[in-house]
């Protein structure tokens, strides 16, 4: 397996990303008419209906939508963890399952899912162990990622000794240390305070900028977070989840926090907000 | 189920052939239970090297409650063994092929006993009593006694009891089937006396004696090693004779070969005395030579077993019993001294 160097500390934060997202090369993921039904018979719940959108190679896609609309479910389908009921998800000819088996995915689940029998550090090292990264390298990567999420002092603690937000950061560190080509994150910053959250956003952008072929799918409830981070925001409607609109965010890269004050930013934010509120009424 | 050809048995065991000292054949001998005083003759022969003298290398394999002696032997895990008469016959009916080559006990070890305050003089007194059983409802002596006195099956209540006579003293049972080689000593160790504290009926005196323990061989082994079996029997004969001649001396062997601390030395003295009687007297009290097979008694016992349902069918006694090895052994035993 070739391991994409997800992160090069020496990489320039200012590396421009925009070119790499050139749409000419065709989508790296095509989601076409995807539906998902849980259960059968009377008790069946339709979680997703006719969901379609494309993801460009190396792009950053944010998923926005009301609670229970099927965002986590969609991520599971894309990751090949569950079969679609209808439609198809296509990674340049390969199925999600094939991609998963090729270890192309790094996933941050909505719950942290840490193993109590491992220290924080060892939790981060877990996926690296699995793919046979050497002990020393795994340790180095884990330490690096723990510093990145601000938990270097907690490396030898056990998960239950951490606060909710700290656990979530361990899960983020674990996914990043894996250096996948596709990063899928389900509300990764949901349990973080604003400041930590902003720091994490910057770090995530920095990592993504530094490595042009990483494609990120990012579930969030924060419109401004979506606009700040994403090339494309997929706005979903409530149950059964459908795609309401796909909005391209053509803000320049690299983006920093102060972009929030820019007119374009506020405009897009407003557009999305309106879209969402229109749905309610 | 029982399909042995008697040619092979008679062909090899030629009584006329003089038996010489053997050349160290290994023999595994299965005991029916934990080593205890009832095996005194075997212990003496082993302990004092009589088997060695006869040229066989004997290993005594312990039995125990988790060990089925016939099953062990049947599987070929032992060559010879000490088994009960009826259990050996049943094993043969089930497919084993054992040969009865010597009679270890020459009379029944069973003694029916009740406490002194229970009227118990003959079989008729059994009516309305509760009693223990030694082997489920398979105690032929008891059945014989009841039939003799015209007591019906349901007029005696059989309840399983512990292997100790304590259940009789406790009152759990009104009548207890003692094993002479064992319980007499137990009673004495409790500070009681068989005569003064109990009313007893001896199975032998009541005419309901049935054959008990005998020396049994795997036919396959016997056919392959007729001489070794003879040599073994010679050593055992010398063992019995030595016990008869010097009971006290034999107790020392029993003390040494049983587990320390269980049966006391005093109990072993009594157990050896009782075992001696069982090895050397016929049911009518007349003396008998060691291990001699009384085929008439066996036939009688078999008939009773059939009658009481202890045997489902009649095995052929002629193939079951082979007195030839013993006959050849007696000569060698004499030369052993």
């Amino acid at each position: 397996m070739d391991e994409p160097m997800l992160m090069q500390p020496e990489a320039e934060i200012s590396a421009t990303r925009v070119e790499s997202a050139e749409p000419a090369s065709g989508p790296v993921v095509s989601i076409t008419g995807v539906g998902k039904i849980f259960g059968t018979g009377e008790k069946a719940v339709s979680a997703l209906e006719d969901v379609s959108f494309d993801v460009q190679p190396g792009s950053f896609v944010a998923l926005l939508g009301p609670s229970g609309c099927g965002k986590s479910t969609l991520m599971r389908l894309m990751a090949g963890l569950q079969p679609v009921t209808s439609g198809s998800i296509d990674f340049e000819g390969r199925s999600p399952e094939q991609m998963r088996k090729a270890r192309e995915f790094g996933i941050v689940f909505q719950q942290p899912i840490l193993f109590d029998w491992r220290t924080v550090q060892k939790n981060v090292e877990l996926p690296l162990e699995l793919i046979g990264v050497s002990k020393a390298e795994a340790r180095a990567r884990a330490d690096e990622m723990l510093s990145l999420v601000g938990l270097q002092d907690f490396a030898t603690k056990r998960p239950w000794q951490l606060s909710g937000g700290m656990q979530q950061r361990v899960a983020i560190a674990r996914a990043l240390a894996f250096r996948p080509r596709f990063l899928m994150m389900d509300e990764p910053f949901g349990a973080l305070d604003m400041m930590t959250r902003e720091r994490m956003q910057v770090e995530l952008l920095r990592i993504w900028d530094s490595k042009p072929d990483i494609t990120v799918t990012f579930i969030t409830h924060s419109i401004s977070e979506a606009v700040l981070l994403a090339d494309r925001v997929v706005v979903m409607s409530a149950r059964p989840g459908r795609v309401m609109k796909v909005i391209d965010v053509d803000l320049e890269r690299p983006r920093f926090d102060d972009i929030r004050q820019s007119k374009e930013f506020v405009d897009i934010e407003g557009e999305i907000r309106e879209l969402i509120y229109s749905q309610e009424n | 189920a029982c399909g042995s050809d008697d040619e092979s048995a008679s062909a090899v065991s030629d009584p006329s052939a003089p038996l010489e000292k053997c050349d160290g054949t290994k023999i595994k001998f299965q005991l029916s239970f934990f080593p205890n005083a009832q095996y005194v003759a075997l212990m003496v022969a082993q302990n004092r090297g009589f088997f060695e003298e006869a040229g066989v290398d004997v290993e005594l394999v312990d039995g125990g409650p988790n060990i089925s002696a016939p099953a062990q032997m049947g599987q070929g895990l032992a060559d010879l063994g000490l088994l009960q008469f009826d259990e050996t016959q049943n094993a043969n009916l089930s497919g084993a092929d054992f040969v009865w080559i010597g009679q270890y006990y020459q009379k029944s070890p069973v003694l029916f006993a009740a406490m002194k305050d229970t009227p118990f003089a003959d079989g008729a007194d059994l009516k309305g009593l509760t009693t223990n059983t030694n082997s489920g409802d398979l105690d032929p002596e008891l059945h014989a006694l009841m039939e003799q006195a015209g007591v019906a099956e349901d007029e005696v209540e059989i309840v399983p009891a512990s292997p100790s006579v304590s259940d009789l003293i406790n009152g759990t049972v009104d009548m207890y089937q003692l094993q002479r080689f064992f319980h007499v000593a137990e009673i004495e160790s409790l500070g009681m006396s068989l005569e003064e504290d109990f009313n007893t009926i001896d199975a032998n005196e009541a005419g309901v004696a049935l054959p008990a323990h005998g020396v049994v061989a795997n036919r396959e082994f016997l056919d392959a090693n007729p001489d070794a079996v003879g040599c073994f029997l010679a050593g055992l004969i010398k063992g019995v004779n030595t016990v008869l001649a010097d009971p006290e001396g034999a107790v020392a062997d029993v003390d040494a070969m049983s587990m320390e601390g269980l049966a006391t030395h005093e109990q072993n003295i009594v157990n050896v005395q009782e075992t001696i009687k069982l090895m050397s007297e016929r049911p009518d009290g007349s003396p008998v030579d060691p291990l001699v097979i009384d085929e008439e008694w066996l036939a009688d016992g078999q008939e009773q077993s059939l009658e009481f349902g202890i045997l489902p069918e009649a095995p052929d006694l002629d193939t079951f019993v082979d007195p030839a090895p013993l006959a050849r052994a007696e000569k060698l035993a004499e030369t052993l001294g």
Partner: protein
Amino acid sequence: MATVPAPGIVPSGVRRLPFQSSYGLLGVIVAILAVWYVGAFLVHLSDEPFPDAKLPYPHFVVQEFVDNLDMVMSAARVTLTMAVLGFLAGAVIAIGIGVFISQSSWLEAAFMPYLLMAQMIPVIALVPVMQTVFRNPTLTRLLIAGFVTILPVAVSTVRGLKAAPPEARELMESYDASRLQTLRHLLSPSALPLVFTGLRIAAPLSVLGSVLVDLTGGQQGLGYLVLAAQVYGPNFAGLVWVAMVVLAVLGALMAQAVSITERLVAPWDVAVRGEVA
């Protein structure tokens, strides 16, 4: 790790008796002894025969123990040795069976019922067969000693291997972890609490298994002592009680050893953490 009180482990909703934990054990032991004494007193007061067989005074048992110290101790050594060996053998076999069976629900459905059936075969029918198959009395005895411990450990292992939450399985799947890796990193650790419960059950049972071994002919061990003392009647009742008490202590020690091992192996388990509070 042992000093970390997990949140909520001070189970304030659960009432506690007003004594400290180490006194607690003492209290329970004293209570048991007191009941025993009263019971023994009543039995001796009545005119039941053999009161010392039915319920001897505790000090009588101690006296018997001291009087037969050498014999009892050497028997206990034999029994304990076989129990430990049998336990280890049984545990290894059982965990192996458990892991194998839980590889698919088909395997489980196919073999679990027979595992149960196997445990019901009386040892007396099994010994000659095992002797014949293995042709090695020591191995046979070891397997008999281990035999009784296999079922609880195997059943607990199968069950424990299912204890991992589906979400955690998904995480492993997302790494395309191999069967073996998932077993090693997720399923085994989350199975440990139940496996250890099974082992805790099996540990004292192995003492029982060892007693079964004592009854297969060797003239050694506490089992032989119990049986022989029973056969040899009320005179030896004291010895039976001594053997029973010693066996109980051995069983408790074995279980305790399992607990200590568990603390070392799985300090992260909630139940283990809970006991530390």
